[in-house]
């Protein structure tokens, strides 16, 4: 295999074109404002925003990951937990909850009239962390769980024989296996928290809690200062690259090949109780706001909302956007990973992780900025109303790429490490290899990544409002319309409908693509 696949470079080039060209086309707009000058960069405000963005993202991501490690470990050690796979599927849900609905859900639980009232102390860092852990911990659990399944069973047996305690097991087995995926997963969660907007602003208690994302929104929307918006977006991208570089220092591809197994592990009776406790606590934490949303939805506008044909049209459109974005994203991710795993096979691990990282970090360029840029670029040449859907799909596909890299990457690397030589030796053509080897071995991971990206795209309000195409109303947009028309009970119903709809699509995609085998991760 002296020639690694080049396809990943094409993906990176297309990605760069799709993100950077709109950014620079924005620079042709508006007058170069005085604010971009040193004055702005030296301002106390910007320094504070920078500090706060990073601080809250570090804390949120750190907490989410730490808790997710505990929960994923408990899930891994407790293969027989009742409703395990249903619960794990439920953990894919917070990802799709539109932020405003999540805020309401969190407030239903921890607000002054909630089940666990935290009063005013909810607003500030507490609220931000609560909401971010609610959003991201379940996702991290889903992403981390396969790592446990990648530890070969005889390693567990060996550790048992050696009499390793839980900590030693963790240090010698689990931690070693985690070193491959943990930096990437942490980076993804970090990016999700860094770009959080409505959650931070609303639960943050005031403008003290301002993230860069807010500042970008402000400069593009209220101040209409594209130059400043682009500078800030690039700053955010730069920061993220820096963090990505830092996290890659901890990154370690496994020296030995690892195997996919799913043997239940023996844990002592104490361990068993611990695991049950951890899982139960996590399920309660994630479940409560979701249940609160469902309770809110039991009001007398259920029939009005569900009998509105507009709702079903929107559902169809939302589905179209979700499925197309996820197809595109998985396809691009596959090509990108083909190249990076080829490099990893050749021992060029550094190059491999750089390629994967470049494919992921574009996530932090705000869709509003890309969308506005694309608009500037396209509006003079085409009828933007007709192109709204493709553009929304494109942007969602770009935003989904880091999810694909995280879910499909390790599986693809493993399959290549193990079967690359055999396939070459057997002289399988690319297509034969895809059909008989790659697809059957990777379809489970492909199923999970398509489900994640589709769900994310479906719950995203995104840039659809930017185009204002009259016929195009997605479910999240409909939800916002209802909220701004005081129809809060209707919005509650729509929110739960959206959740249920996303859950079914998630389940279907995992089943259809992932195949009959019990979708475990």
């Amino acid at each position, binding site marked *: 295999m002296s020639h690694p696949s080049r396809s990943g470079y094409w993906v990176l080039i297309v990605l760069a074109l799709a993100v950077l060209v709109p950014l620079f086309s924005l620079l042709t707009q508006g007058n170069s404002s005085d604010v971009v000058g040193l004055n702005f960069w030296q301002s106390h405000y910007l320094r504070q925003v920078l500090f706060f963005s990073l601080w809250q993202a570090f804390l949120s991501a750190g907490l989410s990951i730490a808790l997710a490690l505990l929960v994923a470990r408990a899930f891994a050690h407790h293969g027989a937990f009742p409703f395990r796979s249903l619960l794990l599927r439920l953990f894919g849900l917070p990802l799709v909850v539109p932020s405003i609905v999540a805020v309401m859900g969190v407030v239903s639980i921890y607000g002054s009239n909630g089940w666990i009232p935290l009063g005013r102390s909810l607003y500030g860092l507490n609220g931000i962390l609560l909401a971010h852990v609610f959003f991201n911990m379940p996702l991290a659990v889903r992403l981390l769980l396969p790592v446990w399944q990648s530890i070969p069973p005889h390693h567990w047996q060996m550790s048992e024989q050696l009499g390793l305690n839980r900590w030693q097991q963790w240090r010698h087995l689990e931690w070693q296996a985690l070193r491959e995926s943990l930096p990437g997963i942490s980076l993804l969660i970090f990016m999700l928290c860094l770009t959080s907007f409505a959650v931070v602003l609303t639960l943050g208690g005031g403008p003290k809690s301002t993230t860069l994302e807010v500042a970008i929104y402000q400069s593009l929307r209220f101040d209409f200062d594209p130059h400043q918006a682009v500078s800030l977006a690039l700053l955010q991208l730069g920061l993220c690259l820096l963090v990505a570089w830092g996290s890659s220092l901890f990154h370690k591809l496994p020296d030995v090949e690892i195997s996919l197994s799913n043997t239940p592990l023996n844990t002592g009776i104490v361990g068993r109780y611990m695991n049950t406790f951890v899982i139960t606590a996590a399920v309660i934490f994630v479940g409560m706001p979701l249940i609160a949303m469902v309770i809110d939805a039991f009001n007398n506008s259920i029939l009005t909302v569900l009998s509105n044909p507009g709702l079903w049209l929107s559902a169809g459109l939302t589905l179209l956007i979700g499925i197309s974005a996820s197809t595109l994203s998985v396809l691009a991710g596959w090509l990108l990973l083909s190249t990076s795993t080829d490099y990893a096979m050749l021992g*060029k691990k550094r190059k491999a992780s750089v390629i994967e990282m470049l494919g992921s970090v574009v996530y932090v360029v705000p869709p509003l900025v890309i969308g506005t840029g694309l608009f500037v670029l396209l509006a003079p040449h085409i009828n933007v109303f007709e192109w709204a859907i493709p553009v929304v799909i494109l942007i969602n596909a770009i935003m989904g790429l880091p999810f694909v890299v995280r879910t499909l990457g390790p599986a693809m690397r493993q399959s290549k490490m193990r*079967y690359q*030589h*055999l396939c070459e*030796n057997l002289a399988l053509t690319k297509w*034969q*290899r895809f059909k008989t080897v790659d697809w*059957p*071995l990777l379809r489970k991971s492909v199923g999970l990544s398509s489900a994640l990206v589709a769900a994310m795209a479906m719950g995203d309000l995104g840039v659809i409002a930017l185009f204002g195409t009259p016929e195009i109303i997605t479910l999240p947009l409909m939800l916002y319309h209802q909220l701004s028309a005081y129809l809060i009970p209707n919005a509650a119903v729509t929110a739960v409908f959206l959740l249920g709809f996303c859950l079914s699509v998630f389940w279907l995609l995992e089943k259809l693509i992932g195949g009959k085998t019990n979708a475990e991760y």
Partner: protein
Amino acid sequence: MLSIEGLEFCYGATDANSSFPMCFDLTVNAGEILSLIGPSGSGKSTLLKLIAGFNAASKGCIKINGQQIQLLSPAKRPVTMVFQEHNLFPHLDVYTNVALGMNPSLQLTVQQNRAVDDALENLGLAGMQKRSPGSLSGGQRQRVALARALVRKHAILLLDEAFAALGPAQREEMIALVKTMVEDQNMCALLVSHQPTDALLASKRTAFVHHGQIFKIDETEKLLNRSDLTEINKYLGA
């Protein structure tokens, strides 16, 4: 006849543990199993990978019956390699795993089908067509891999510690199978093993590989008794 002439290779600096230049010269006769022994990291497996084309040599040539093959892609080389593990795709049954060797598109003619069945029968796997690799023992799995090598009928057979996970009786049996196969099909085979007994069983000639070179090549029994050479002594232990 397989001949290897001045084949040079050096791992990139990234692989710090084995970054010395290697150079190999060797011939294997048709119908012969040549064993390769030597310390870990000496370059035995690397030599096999060079022949199979997984690693590209910087210099030298590999000839099979006079034809140079070192520039061909792995898929184009008349080589079958059997690894220590992961020779079989876990999601495909025994039959399909062997059939892949016959025709990767899996569209087999009646004769080809029969050839697959025959090969399985030859290796004592009759009736196991529908079994999944996971349900087989380690020995059975390696036999399936050998069955696949059998149907491929390639001139070169490379065994990379293929029997390392098997017990003595099973190894003996497998080596006997390989011997018949190599003789019947007039293959050139290379066997990498950590067990000098394997070499004794399988090969008239054995090569001792040391520090990226064929250090000594001789009749197996003689080579294993060369107590005058410290390298070999050290490897075999007291």
